[in-house]
């Protein structure tokens, strides 16, 4: 006997990058904020623009437009602050977006083998098929494990 497949509706945040829309699982989104000052310093990690200060935290800004659209954003209206997992740790990352974001409920079709690693799945909304992003694959990062040598996220200043 074949078991019926249960489809579960999940919440997604729709974001706009240029002319295209993408989705991120709502559980990964912390907030949408107006652009603030970016602090830049030398580094060698591609796609990272710098950091912003948000609620006392230092949050890296990662421009994902070039990877998703093939070109950098010329204008940005908001930063979408999302949770990015690094192995057994998680931190905020700010994604520049060009338009308002929208919260929707939809059923996701999981990504197939042919899909890029940054595609977690697909949803259909208002007749449009939208990529659901896997931020862990889309943004750079150091994967961590529970080892004693793993650096703590917050350090007290040493005397």
């Amino acid at each position, binding site marked *: 006997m074949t078991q019926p497949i249960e489809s579960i509706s999940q919440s997604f945040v729709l974001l706009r990058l240029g002319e295209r829309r993408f989705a991120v699982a709502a559980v990964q989104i912390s907030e949408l904020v107006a652009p603030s000052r970016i*602090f830049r*310093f*030398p*580094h*060698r*990690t591609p796609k*990272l623009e710098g*950091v912003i*200060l948000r609620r*006392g*935290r*230092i*949050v*890296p800004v*990662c421009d994902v437009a070039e990877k998703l659209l093939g070109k950098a954003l010329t204008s940005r209206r908001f930063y979408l602050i999302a949770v*990015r997992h*690094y192995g057994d*740790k998680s*931190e905020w*990352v700010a994604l520049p977006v060009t338009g308002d974001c929208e919260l929707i409920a939809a059923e996701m079709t999981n990504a197939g083998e042919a899909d890029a690693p940054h595609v977690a799945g697909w949803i259909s909304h208002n007749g449009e098929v939208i990529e659901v992003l896997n931020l862990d694959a889309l*943004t*750079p*990062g*150091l994967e*961590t494990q529970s080892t004693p040598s793993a*650096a*703590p*996220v*917050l*350090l*007290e*200043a*040493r*005397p």
Partner: protein
Amino acid sequence: MRVAAPPAKPHVAARTEQIILFRISGQPFAVSSASVQEVRSVDSLAGVATEIDQPTLRKVRHVVRRGEKTLYVVSGAAHFGLPPSSAGLVFVLRKTHTALLVDGIDKMATMTRLQALPLAYCHEERAWYRGLTALDQNVIPVVNPEGFLTAEEFALLDASIVPETIPDILTGEGMELL
């Protein structure tokens, strides 16, 4: 009935750290003052530093000796990939064989919180910085004094010099810290 007052919380003194805010090619950085042994004018190196020509390690162009210690002079601009700038000062870094060329010092400050570099940063910068600190609504990278040269780079440099031929010049004239 009297209710006992909750026990007073023990006062925990905020742990702070004195830092030096400095610039390289206009970019602000911070370093723990405890890790800077001495601050000298670049002029004090003129004519007495020995040149090094390592094509694979352009950030080190000079070596000096201070007592028994050989110090490799690292261009901060070349190390961080910043535009070349005119260095005015050199930091002799404690517990390393490194002296760092910088444009100048902005000021001394007290750091109350050092936040680890976000995990999104995953290349050489993890060795360059101890972390980031927020100071006066700015975010400043706090450099790791041991992150300017790797063990392999030290080995390469050590192999290219004859220590006895380097004059001992770093005596006097500098500003000792701590």
